[in-house]
């Protein structure tokens, strides 16, 4: 077990492109940290640099306080789980898991004992003599985990280990990865592009964009207090709604109507000193069907009325989609997020508002609906820099 410190770590390619720029992360002993971001954000490069599979072009990597930049992967005592699992096809499950121990010249009896133990933890005991080719995806994934835990390394690195599993199995494996990490208490760095995994697994989450760290914090903190538009749009599913808005006389003028700012929001915006033209963000779950809100709340909140475009009933809740005629909020970071999600290619002018309503809502497709929201939940962003003007961290 060890703490891992990335001190201004940079990856520059010979052509001058930077995959990772001055990344500063301090990972405490036993911590489960997630690197998350869209494809090409440098998260895998960062992981490979910690592993030693890629050279570090600048800055310093310290493992347990010792500079590790020049150490070869085998001297770092770190185990890695690959996206493709990278099991050795010519070895049995037992030999796959024993491989790191055999390389470390551990004696035969100890190897057997440790492999048996890891197999028991991962429920692989009856598969030990099979070849990887004869295993299911979930079993292969567990063998890959077994190969990592069997030699009790200082840290685990996981590169999207669940992305090749189907949705249901992924959910189960997510829980077992989390349990396993708690049980072993080993420092873990986990790379994913899936914000659900990021939210549910990690002690802390590092959001990356274009090789730069956007924000580091606990999942709840990132959700409540995103530092900028990018984090706000990336964390949360369905993602936060963004509309262009203007600050006028202590009110916010937006396609959702003119809403008076609450004292908390006003003081934060004033302290941040942003422009008058802003982007307002509000999460789908902060809307509610007005008929389901009690009177006391209704007065303190704001409402808007529009036609329900699409209604998705999930059973426990309903997602109502509204179209706004106004242009969607324009920002480089939002464009990048849209491109990553593939929604940039979806035709349609204007912007869409997603609201998550109680299942008891009488909303119907094509019908008008009055929707309530709490103005205190509004997050305001600077359209140019993407900075969160209501950040209270």
């Amino acid at each position, binding site marked *: 077990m060890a703490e891992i410190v990335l001190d201004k770590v940079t990856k520059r390619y010979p052509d001058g492109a930077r995959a990772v720029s001055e990344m500063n992360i301090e990972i405490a002993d036993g911590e489960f940290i997630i690197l998350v971001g869209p494809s090409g954000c440098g998260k895998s490069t960062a992981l490979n640099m910690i592993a030693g599979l890629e050279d570090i072009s600048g800055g310093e990597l310290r493992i347990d306080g010792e500079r590790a930049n020049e150490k*070869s992967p*085998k001297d770092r005592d770190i185990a890695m789980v690959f996206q493709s699992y990278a099991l050795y096809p*010519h070895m049995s499950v037992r030999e796959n898991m024993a491989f790191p121990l055999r390389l470390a010249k551990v004696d035969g009896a100890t190897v057997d004992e440790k492999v048996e133990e890891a197999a028991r933890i991962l429920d692989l005991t009856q598969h030990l003599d099979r070849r990887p080719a004869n295993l299911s995806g979930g079993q292969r994934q567990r063998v890959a985990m077994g190969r990592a835990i069997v030699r009790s390394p200082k840290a685990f690195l996981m590169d999207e280990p669940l992305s090749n599993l189907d949705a249901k199995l992924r959910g189960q494996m997510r829980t077992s990865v989390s349990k396993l990490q708690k049980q072993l208490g080993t420092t873990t760095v986990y790379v994913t592009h899936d914000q659900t995994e990021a939210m549910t697994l990690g002690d802390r989450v590092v959001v990356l964009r274009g090789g730069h760290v956007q924000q580091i914090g606990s999942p709840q903190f990132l959700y409540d207090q995103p530092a900028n538009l990018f984090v706000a749009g990336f964390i949360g599913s369905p993602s936060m709604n963004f509309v262009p808005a203007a600050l006028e006389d202590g009110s916010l003028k937006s396609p959702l109507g003119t809403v008076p700012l609450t004292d908390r929001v006003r003081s934060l915006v004033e302290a941040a000193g942003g422009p008058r033209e802003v982007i307002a963000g509000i999460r789908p779950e902060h809307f509610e069907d007005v008929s389901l809100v009690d009177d006391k709340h209704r007065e303190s909140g704001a409402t808007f009325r529009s036609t329900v475009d699409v209604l998705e009933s999930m059973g426990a809740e309903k997602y109502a989609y509204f179209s706004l005629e106004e242009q969607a909020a324009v920002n480089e970071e939002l464009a990048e997020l849209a491109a990553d999600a593939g929604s940039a290619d979806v035709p349609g002018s204007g912007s869409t508002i997603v609201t998550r309503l109680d299942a008891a809502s009488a909303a119907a497709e094509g019908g008008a609906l009055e929707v309530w929201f709490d103005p205190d939940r509004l997050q305001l962003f600077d359209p140019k820099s993407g900075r969160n003007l209501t950040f209270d961290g």
Partner: protein
Amino acid sequence: MAMQPATAGRKARWALLDIVVVVYALVPVLWIASLSLKTKDTVADGNFVPREWTLQNYRDIFATTEFIRPLFNSIGIALIATFIAVVLGMMAAYAIARLDFPGKKLLVGVSLLIAMFPQISLVTPLFNIERELGLFDTWPGLILPYITFALPLAIYTLSSFFREIPWELEKAAKMDGATPAQAFRRVIAPLAAPGVFTTAILVFILCWNDFLFAISLTSTEASRTVPAALSFFTGTSQFDDPTGTISAAAVVITIPIILFVLFFQRRIVAGLTSGAVKG
């Protein structure tokens, strides 16, 4: 591609086609085998099945050093050339498949060029060079050009095999604590084995079957290989027709090739890499 249902008509058509191909390919071979089993008197009778069977031709060729010595040369030269070509080819192919280095395209281009080079145009220069260097009519004198012309083949076949081995397996081995040499020996080499066998067989056949260099760069039994030696076969007297013995020798040198292919066929086909990654 989806398998289409095998109807009787389709089966019959394929069977017919297969038979045509097999007959077309095997008749000359069987003809040679038949000739080698005929007696001297019936050799020219034109019968496909010998009327009088004899093993005398085989006894004759193994009774003289005229055949034994070239056979020994052939086996030795082909094995050594194959071994060296495959070892060098493995290193080059691994580099081509895995590394980015300046001049990589040039290397691939030059090796392709060598493969396409008309060998006949090299015979005279090689003859002169080898005589000057004292390599003429020696084993190295044949092994060297064989390696040269086998290398492009080896590099091309092996690099396509290496490319098939997932890169991540090597990374995984490194993370598991292997040195680059250990990763190669314990992970990459076992997975590349089918490719190495395939390449070795192809290279061996290339060297084994060569006639041009064998006839031009040798002059005595010191290094003459079987294909060249066959052309020097004579009967017991000058006027004796050596058809029977030549056929017998041809059959004998075909056997190793057939054995190789039959013996290693499973290894060639075995997809050892399945199950390495998802899918």
